[in-house]
């Protein structure tokens, strides 16, 4: 995307387009990535409830894969995950490894 020059900006940094925050892909901030292990998941949806970035996609009442475009890697989902029989359904892995 070509960045705008100073003559093309809306006065006072007013954002004139609704819902434009969706274009800001905050996933690039992430240094740790949550990985979902479906075999340990009991579908409690705690992760969906706690995620501050709506990065856990739910379809027909069940969670699926992460939306990594917006996941900042905060790790709250992994912390809250109760898992199954002592095994977490979400684990954090370092990016780039």
């Amino acid at each position, binding site marked *: 995307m070509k960045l705008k020059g*100073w003559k093309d900006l809306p006065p006072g940094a007013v954002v004139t387009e609704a819902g434009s925050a969706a274009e800001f892909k905050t996933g690039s901030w992430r240094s740790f990535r949550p990985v979902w292990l479906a075999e340990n998941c009991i579908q409690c949806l705690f992760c969906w409830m706690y995620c501050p970035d709506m990065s856990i996609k739910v379809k027909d009442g069940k969670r699926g894969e992460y939306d990594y475009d917006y996941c900042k890697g905060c790790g709250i989902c992994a912390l809250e995950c109760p898992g199954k029989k002592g095994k977490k359904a979400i684990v954090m892995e370092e990016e780039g490894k």
Partner: protein
Amino acid sequence: MGKVVAVTGNEAVANALRQVNPDVCAAYPITPATDIMQRFTSFVSNGMVDTEMILVESEHSAMSACVGASAAGGRVITATSSQGLALMWEILFIASGSRMPIIMPVVNRALSAPLNIHGDHSDTMGARDSGWIQLYSENAQDAYDNTIQAFRIAEHLDIRLPVMVCLDGFIISHSIERIEYMEDEPVKKFVGEYKQVYPLLDVEHPVSYGPLILPDLYMEYKRAQHEVMTKASKVVLDVASDFEKISGRRYGLFESYRLDDADIALVILNSAAGTAKDVVDEFREKGIKAGLLKPRLFRPFPYGEVADALKSAKAVCVMDRADSFGGFGPLYMEIASAFMMNGNKPALINKIYGLGGRDFLPEHAETVLNELNDIVKGGKVKTHKEYIGVRE
């Protein structure tokens, strides 16, 4: 035609605000500006204006409420002084950066410590870099006229910036002077109806204010803000020209007083300029070519025009009613910059006077003009910056 009245500076400013009838006013009292808002709230209570009055718990909140109301789409005012302006400091930049045409009379008062309630320019000089347009007023008439013109300047579609109208605490705010009021109708017609370009309350066209702008765009916004300021001088002159048609009173970017052939000149802001002009006349009667320049528009500062107006002067003293401790006075720095731009190099000295409401007396102007005269006659500049009217 209007009518001639005997009123204080604060009363005159409050009356100008009544005539404009803004949409929203958020204010918190502080001496010596309290009187403006006290009178204005009476207008609200008595149904003389339709303004939504918001009484807040601090000046920080007052300016924050003004920012919100301005974003919503209203024509917005407040007034303050000294510590109040200092407390608003953070939000001043948000108002200008968001291009909100808020109008704020500031009754100039010294800053603590030590605590002092009287007039000097430390408060508005401290807000010099906040991105607000600043107009200075010598007397109650200037303050009244500047307040009315401020709306047209601020709301001009090429500008859309907040404006401070500065007048000296007590000397002007609380002294009764003879001034000329205009009738309500011509004032209302002059300021016209205000239309915000991106009102938050227009739910058909949703907008967001105050986004996070990172290094990839921040500098472009600041460059654009600088550009707007460069256009303000012309708008100030255009508005002054329209104002002259309805009032008969002429305003410029500054006042040139007997400068055309002046050998020595004073540069001085606000009420003290009146006193100094009398002394300039006395020197002229003695055959000494003295003159005076009184800036009206301080931000943006009209460097080229000021340097040109002072071109015949061989020695100039810039009088500051505020100090930048460890530096020159703020007005001096502007005048020195102006001379650098056009290559004109008169002897230039700086005097700090009148802090905390210390009286500026004719003999102070006389001493300074004599010093300038000595410099022109071949004497040397003894000190570049000195306090005057201060006890050893």
